[in-house]
């Protein structure tokens, strides 16, 4: 039992390292991905919020001051980058559709863990480097951020990444049944962007819609962690986020198990 766990741990650590090394190989790519793109996005969103507050009555919107929104605008694009999967999902889909998944199926590890560990390695290295920007901006501009809440906030984001990876796995398994599934990735990720609260804090939306979005697990990717970090929400909201991700994980886990089992059985090995 102990030996098998050590083997599992070593194997996945090696895969996580593979994810890190692969992404750091082309440093310029990495810098643009982890720093420049989110920084530009932050710049534009901050300017938008400053323009909105120029005409805001009482200096408050939805009960919160300008600094609260600036804090949200500074952090949201960075969390959004972590809580979404484009690259690894495309790779997983390609493996299934092209038939190159054969090389993984014959190894003593699962397709799910092979990509999960790499995804987590990539997310960790991206987080470590890119989070310096919102941290420095929050500190320098004295934005309302509860730094002691950071560990729990990251805990929820990483837990959410597990859900996102499971959804990516589901999209990839669809490759067993359909020849083209690229549009599923696009649709899934855009829906996550819309429902996650990256564009605008969910509490600004109409009350009924906001309540629905908070029940769904997708708000645990950006809105709930940020609401908790910036003081828009309390610990109760965060635990609701953990709960929502848990039931979504159970549902997606079951669905992915069924799709994978059926898909592998009918897979012919020379390409789906």
């Amino acid at each position, binding site marked *: 039992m102990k030996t098998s766990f050590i083997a599992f741990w070593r194997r996945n650590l090696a895969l996580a390292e593979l994810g890190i090394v692969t992404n750091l190989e*082309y440093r*310029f*790519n990495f810098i643009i991905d982890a720093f420049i793109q989110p920084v530009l*996005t932050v710049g534009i969103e901050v300017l*938008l919020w400053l323009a909105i507050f120029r005409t805001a009555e009482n200096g408050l919107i939805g009960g919160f001051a300008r600094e609260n929104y600036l804090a949200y605008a500074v952090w949201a694009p960075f969390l959004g980058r972590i809580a979404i999967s484009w690259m690894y999902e495309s790779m997983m889909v390609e493996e299934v559709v092209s038939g190159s998944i054969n090389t993984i199926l014959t190894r003593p590890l699962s397709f799910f863990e092979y990509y999960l560990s790499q995804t987590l390695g990539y997310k960790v290295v991206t987080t470590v480097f890119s989070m310096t920007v919102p941290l420095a901006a929050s500190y320098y501009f004295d934005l309302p951020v509860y730094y002691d809440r950071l560990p729990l906030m990251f805990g929820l984001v990483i837990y959410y990444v597990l859900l996102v990876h499971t959804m990516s796995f589901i999209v990839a398994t669809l490759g067993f049944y359909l020849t*083209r*599934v690229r549009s599923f990735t696009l649709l899934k990720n855009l829906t996550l962007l*819309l429902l996650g609260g990256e564009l605008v804090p969910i509490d600004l939306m109409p009350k009924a819609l906001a309540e629905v979005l908070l029940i769904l697990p997708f708000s645990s990717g950006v809105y709930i962690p940020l609401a908790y970090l910036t003081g828009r929400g309390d610990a109760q909201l965060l635990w609701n986020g953990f709960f929502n991700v848990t039931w979504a994980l159970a549902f997606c886990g079951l669905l992915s198990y069924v799709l994978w089992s059926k898909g592998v059985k009918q897979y012919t090995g020379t390409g789906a």
Partner: protein
Amino acid sequence: MSGNLSTVIKKYLSLYKAFFKASLVADLEYRLNFVFLVFAEFVWYSTQLILFEVLYRHTSIIGNWNLAQMRVFIFLVLFVDSIYMILWDPNFSSFTDNVRKGSLDLLLMKPINSMFMLSSQRISVSHLPCFFITGAGLIWALAQLPDFNWYKLFWLLILIPSGLSVIFCGRFALNSTSIIFTRADFLQYIWYSLFRLGLRPDAIYSGFVRIILIFVLPFAMVASIPARMLLEPPSYWMLAWGMILPFILFYLLKKYWNYCLRFYSSASS
């Protein structure tokens, strides 16, 4: 001379017709994928609309536009974006792969303009519904404005092509850089970040940044300036800039493309 020109135009139009047919057949081959692509585009366009609809629930003015004026801007930006997506996006998305895998060799050897071949081979049919819906949305948004002078729409005949030239030349130039570098995925990231500048009204930028967005990285020409021409008294120097800009951009792009090609050493250059 004019006979030659008309022959060339006919040749390119017939090529474009063939590209369109091939793209239509390719897109409709996988129907479920096609339906999901159309749906995904609607989700993306909805996010842009919803953002401002939500913001205007809490404020009456952003920049110096009210909600009715902002709707004109948003539908205009989405309309221009849909044209770009239909005509060029699939080609630009596969540009770096063409360079890395060496298929650029084949395209360069064809007896037609290499820039045309690289940018126009694939047409995104899945964006056609978005084109019609955002166009209808623009007309609807303009109809909501009191006393809108519909003759102003003629300005768009100059300004939309000008905005499209900004997108085309910007993306083509960035992609051309992939010939110089080995792996250039970052160019896509840079493009999407820069393009976001055009998705927001120029009124949120002020001073130096705004000047840069009009003259240096002219993303304000994509929709902000055209929207201003529709919503505000016409600025003739802006119109003149809109007419000159495509010529400057295409001249610079051609120079840069030829410069980048000097670095090309066939597959995996």
